[in-house]
């Protein structure tokens, strides 16, 4: 069943107007699929992830709908969402290092949370301890305060807590950004392990770091300026990307074995357009080396090869008859 997001639009209310951070986004994640959601800062990837769990007061859903396992998610109704959170849909937040109450022992916090949600801590404790050990921690960290744990330990504890009730959808938001490379690899392996042990059904990994996606993701969805740019199997996005933005993004990554004093690492010149009043047409066209006349119209996000969708006029003519995903 998995997750289906259909024409979702989410904006931030500001005094100067609505900032459309997620603009007409349509995609789906299958059961047991780990989907990577990539893009640069401010492209709307975290907004998309957060809006599926907990909209904050500045956020509004302008349109579209979301289904999880065939059930409509009332994402703009925070009260109705409360029932889904933790049980059906859970998040490992960007701020995992500071996500635990500093004045409660970890175990006591989990106990109080479970009790408040109508679960029994005593009967959940063996499983909790088993999973804590599974991620390489000692069971007595439950008796410790968050300040007594290292950053990597907190990250793993939060991952265990968030997935304790075996949610259908786990949103992992920038979970490796604050970690060193060896810990990043361990966290990536945890994501795979959690999927293989059926702790989570579908996973959405939000990151700006394509290397972690190369390790864990089955599919990768690339966002640019609030819109979808490209979606395909992970190896296709990394080895044969079609969208010029994805191509530039991949080529700006450092390669192993290349001395960068000989080959200067190039970035993508320019910056993303403002989302308060985004320009019409393709949003990448000001930075795109291949931009041409047609790019003043908005390119549709269409499937051009089986399982490979892209929003670019260079490839739109080859669209498969079914269209979309």
């Amino acid at each position, binding site marked *: 069943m998995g997750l289906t997001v259909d024409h979702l639009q989410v904006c931030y209310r500001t005094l100067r107007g609505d900032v459309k951070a997620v603009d007409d986004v349509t995609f789906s994640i299958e059961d047991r699929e780990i989907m990577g959601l990539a893009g640069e800062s401010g492209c709307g990837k975290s907004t998309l992830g957060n809006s599926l*769990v*907990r909209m*904050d007061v500045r956020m509004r859903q302008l349109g579209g709908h979301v289904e999880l396992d065939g059930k409509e998610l009332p994402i703009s109704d925070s009260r109705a*969402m*409360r*029932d*889904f*959170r*933790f*049980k059906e849909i*859970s*998040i490992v*937040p960007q*701020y995992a290092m*500071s*996500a*635990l*109450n*500093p*004045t*409660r*022992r970890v175990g006591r916090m989990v106990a*109080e*949370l479970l009790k*408040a*949600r109508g679960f029994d801590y005593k009967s959940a404790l063996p499983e909790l301890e088993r999973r804590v050990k599974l991620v390489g921690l000692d069971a007595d960290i439950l008796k410790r*305060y968050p*300040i*007594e744990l290292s950053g990597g330990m907190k990250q793993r504890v*939060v991952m265990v*807590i*968030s997935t304790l009730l075996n949610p259908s959808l786990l949103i992992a938001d920038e979970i490796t950004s604050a970690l060193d490379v060896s810990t990043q690899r361990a966290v990536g392996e945890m994501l795979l392990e959690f999927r293989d042990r059926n702790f989570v059904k579908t996973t959405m990994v939000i990151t700006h770091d394509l290397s972690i996606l190369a390790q864990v993701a089955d599919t990768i969805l690339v966002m640019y300026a609030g819109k979808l740019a490209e979606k395909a199997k992970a190896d296709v996005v990394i080895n044969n990307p079609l969208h010029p933005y994805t191509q530039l993004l991949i080529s700006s990554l450092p390669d192993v074995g290349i001395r960068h004093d000989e080959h200067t690492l190039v970035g993508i010149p320019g910056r993303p357009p403002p989302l308060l009043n985004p320009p019409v047409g393709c949003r990448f066209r000001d930075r795109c080396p291949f931009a041409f006349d047609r790019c003043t119209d908005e390119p549709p996000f269409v499937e051009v090869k089986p399982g490979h969708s892209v929003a670019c006029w260079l490839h739109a003519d080859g669209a498969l008859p079914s269209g979309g995903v």
Partner: protein
Amino acid sequence: MRRYLVRKLIIYILTFFVAATIDWILPRLVSGNPISILLSKMSLQPGTYNATYKLYMNAFGFNRPWWKQYLTFWTALFHGNLGISIYQFPKPVTSVIADYVLFTLALLIPAILLAYFAGNRVGAMAARRKLLDNSVLPVSYLLTATAYPWLALLLAFLFAAGGIGHFFPISGGFSYGLLPSWNWTFIWSLVTHWFLPFLTLFLVAFGGWAIGMRNLIIYELESDYTHYLEALGAPTRLVRRYAYRNAVLPQLTGLALSLGMVVGGAVVTEVTFAYPGLGYLVFQAVGNNDYFLLQGIFLFIIAGVLIANFVIDIVYVIVDPRTRVGISGA
């Protein structure tokens, strides 16, 4: 843990030593001479003034070199002797303070504690209810910015002097016609005299606590651990309980400082209502250049603040795990 407490204790003892020294110096910097004030209250024969003056200067030791006076001060202090009061000559300072201290404690401790609890509760409630916030916040700002003597005069005018009625007596600790004894007439007299000074102190402090708590709660409700709890579907009750418990920590320090100042009394409020507490006594001691009485009261204040701080240091170790980590790290 023991090392931490011992180190703290040493710091507090040093602080006491320095503060007591300053306490000894300060009254002596004020111009005027306590003995001449004392003598002016006695109806002396014209010829005897100089001889009596010399006698009293000798008796109080004011004609000795300053360092000798200072050493005598410490020797006497260790014997629990704070000297003789000039304002209520020849009563010892300790017994003068004993007469006034109960009034001050009975006035300030309820005012501080009730204001603390009520202010924290109301502030926390206001933090996430727009309607309540819009009324509680301006009222609290008004209250906390109000000067004690002004509010005291206003309350005295409204409730004691006939602005609205003559519900309460206007000054004193109890009716002058009564002798202290444990009967209902006397206790009722104590309560009615107590109420307006209490209300003054309560209202001003209440505003401060409410504003502080409101801001702290808002900060806690915007913190990462709150957002995580909400993302895991925690009910509002649990979220607010955590926020309250964490927001109350800085408030505790403020409470300790207020409680430490208790023994100093509330000078302006007590003076306005002529309430016979330590604050009122400070006022009288200054007016009479009463070195010993002033010294004695200030010693009480110093000891009070230091003890309250020491207690709160220990309480903090119990309620905030972060301090415990700091201890082993330091």
